[in-house]
């Protein structure tokens, strides 16, 4: 397949004795769009800053093309970053912001001697204008960056990084400060730019939708550890543990027992499933995605329950159903009123079995529905940044 560019080997990071990264092993391929996804303080920004060279891991190795880079300062790495809230230079205009990196004299070999070489002004101009065109900011070159809208500042930040022709672009929650509409537009735009430039994007976000929509590969992180690596489809359909299942989309997570291959028991009933390779009678977590559940008449259902709450979500209804005291979230396009008795049918491919983990029992219960559902959207960027900053203080 594609070539490996960067590899993190057993990287650990601790700030003041507090472990932030716990033995991270990860590699990044050429021209891929990889997302580090996780909640505040999961270590994703720290990972990014290690790759960027802003911090050095307490232990472990950072390899670029197989060469150890731990102690190479950021300005000597072929990596550029788009920062949270852009970090544009307020005293420079759009053109000068983008030209900033090009104006730094670079060491180069001239006639066998090492020399600091400046790019000719004409080339700088050409490259800046070319890049402004890529990010659709032609005609803005003389504007002050402080006069630009959030989306425009974002584009300047991207152009400023890409104009240096890095092998890898690091993006640290770049869309966090934008409103929802703009965010969707910029997602498409970023994907387009990545494909057009054909370079690796390493993208940090806490927004699972964003991750699913843009990435080739998603790395789900929590508590300084990698929870799962995979394509968006894999991660959604085959979550490795309760944390991933809950963080990516909505999940009902139940305790179950694996009787034998392809047979799982929960709610005192055996169901057929597609999973195998578990020990006989192994306790497991059972994941059932809310949109996979079919509602039928009570007498036809494998399980029977009562509707306790219904919320209209536009495309579907979020229906909370009480099964013997255990509440499930079911997403359905059919309306079922509160108090209505319903039955459900689970097909074998609707049921996903996971090994028990430290996260078992923490997620996937919709008894206190409303708070949990909104939690993901409320995680603000500020939290994360403050947290990481306080580590450094």
């Amino acid at each position, binding site marked *: 397949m594609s070539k490996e560019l960067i590899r993190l080997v057993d990287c650990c990071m601790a700030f003041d004795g507090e472990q932030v990264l716990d033995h991270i092993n990860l590699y990044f391929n050429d021209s891929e769009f990889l997302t580090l996804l996780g909640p505040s303080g999961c270590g994703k920004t720290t990972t990014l800053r290690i790759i960027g060279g802003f911090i050095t891991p307490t232990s472990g190795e950072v390899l670029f093309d197989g060469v150890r880079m731990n102690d190479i300062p*950021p300005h000597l790495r072929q990596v550029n970053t788009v*920062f949270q*809230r852009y*970090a544009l*230079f307020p*005293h420079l205009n759009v053109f000068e912001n983008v030209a900033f990196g090009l104006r*730094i004299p670079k060491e180069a070999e001239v006639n066998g001697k090492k020399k600091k070489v400046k790019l000719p002004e004409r080339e700088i101009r050409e490259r800046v204008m070319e890049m402004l065109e890529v990010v659709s900011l032609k005609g803005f070159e003389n504007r002050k960056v402080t006069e630009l809208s959030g989306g425009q500042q974002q584009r300047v930040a991207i152009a*400023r990084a890409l104009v240096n022709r890095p092998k890898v672009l690091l993006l640290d929650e770049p869309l966090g400060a934008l409103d929802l509409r703009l965010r969707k537009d910029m997602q498409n735009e970023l994907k387009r730019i990545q494909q057009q430039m054909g370079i690796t994007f390493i993208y940090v976000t806490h927004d699972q939708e964003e991750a699913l929509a843009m990435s080739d590969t998603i790395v789900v992180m929590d508590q300084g550890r990698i929870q799962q690596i995979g394509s968006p489809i894999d991660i959604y359909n085959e979550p490795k543990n309760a944390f991933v299942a809950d963080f990516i989309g909505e999940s009902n997570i139940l305790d179950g027992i694996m009787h034998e291959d392809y047979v799982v028991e929960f709610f005192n009933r055996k169901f057929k499933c597609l999973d195998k390779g578990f020990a006989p009678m192994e306790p497991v977590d059972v994941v059932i995605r809310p949109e996979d559940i079919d509602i039928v008449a009570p007498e036809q259902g494998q399980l029977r329950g009562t509707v306790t709450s219904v919320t209209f979500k536009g495309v579907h209804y979020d229906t909370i159903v009480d099964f013997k005291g255990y509440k499930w979230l079911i997403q359905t396009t059919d309306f079922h009123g509160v108090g209505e008795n319903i039955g459900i049918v689970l097909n074998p491919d609707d049921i996903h079995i996971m090994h028990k983990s430290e996260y078992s029992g923490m997620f996937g219960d919709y008894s206190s529905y409303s708070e949990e559902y909104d939690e993901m959207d409320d995680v603000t960027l500020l939290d994360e940044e403050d947290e990481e900053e306080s580590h450094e*203080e």
Partner: protein
Amino acid sequence: MRTKTSPLNRLFMALVFFFLYAPIFVLIVFSFNDSKSRTVWQGFTLDWYSELLQDSSIMSALSTTLLVSLLATLIATVAGLFAAIGFYNMKRRLRAPLMTVNNIPMTNADIVTGVSLCLLFVAFFGLWGSVAEWFNGVQSVITLPENLHMGFGTLLIAHITFDIPYVILSIMPKLRQMDRNLVDAAQDLGCTWMQAFWKVVLPEIKPGIVSGMLIAFTMSVDDFVISYFTAGSATSTLAMVVYGMTKRRISPKINAVSTLLFVTVLLLLIIVNVREARQEKAIKKTAEVRR
């Protein structure tokens, strides 16, 4: 916080400003008085201004004042800039006590600062004296001066000491307001830390540096008490000459020199303010045109 102001408010403001400026006005008027009297107007003259130029004690005090203020301001600005960057990069546990010590010269009474520095210099010179005596006794290649006195050097040290805290106090907030990622961004784009500092940090905190410089210079020019205790008997600032004269009678030449200083500063301030206002207008205009 903007509402309409009543004429009563304006009157109050005018009264306070009259109170602040009446003595200055009197001082300026009597620099043109054709008599030594500081209270009776005897007619217009420029004699005091021409005599001023011949008065070596006032002129040397003036040059001492300006020299020590300028040097102290420059040194304090550079040192304060470095110190502020150091403090900014420190862990809070280390920074907090250092900032408290930094604030001492500002919160302490001037006279205590002056007296304590005076004690330090005297104690140091005593110590130096015995060391130099011993040193000159054991060898004869280099002869160290055995008797040091307070003078321009000690005056300069004192001024630097009380100027630096003001510089730090005006630079620190600018550093804090700065997006922390700016330095990272510059390094990311190929700058070394030093280049990032020159190209990004310095332009960002420039307003803080300038205002710190201005405050430091103001404090130096305005200071009398600390200078009085640290300048020794041979060196005098303008304020010390004035103080020496108050025991007898102050010559109108002093009025003349302070008028000159005042007018210079006034003109400078007006020029700076007009330029700033113009720049702001220009910025607003371009912004409007673009819209």
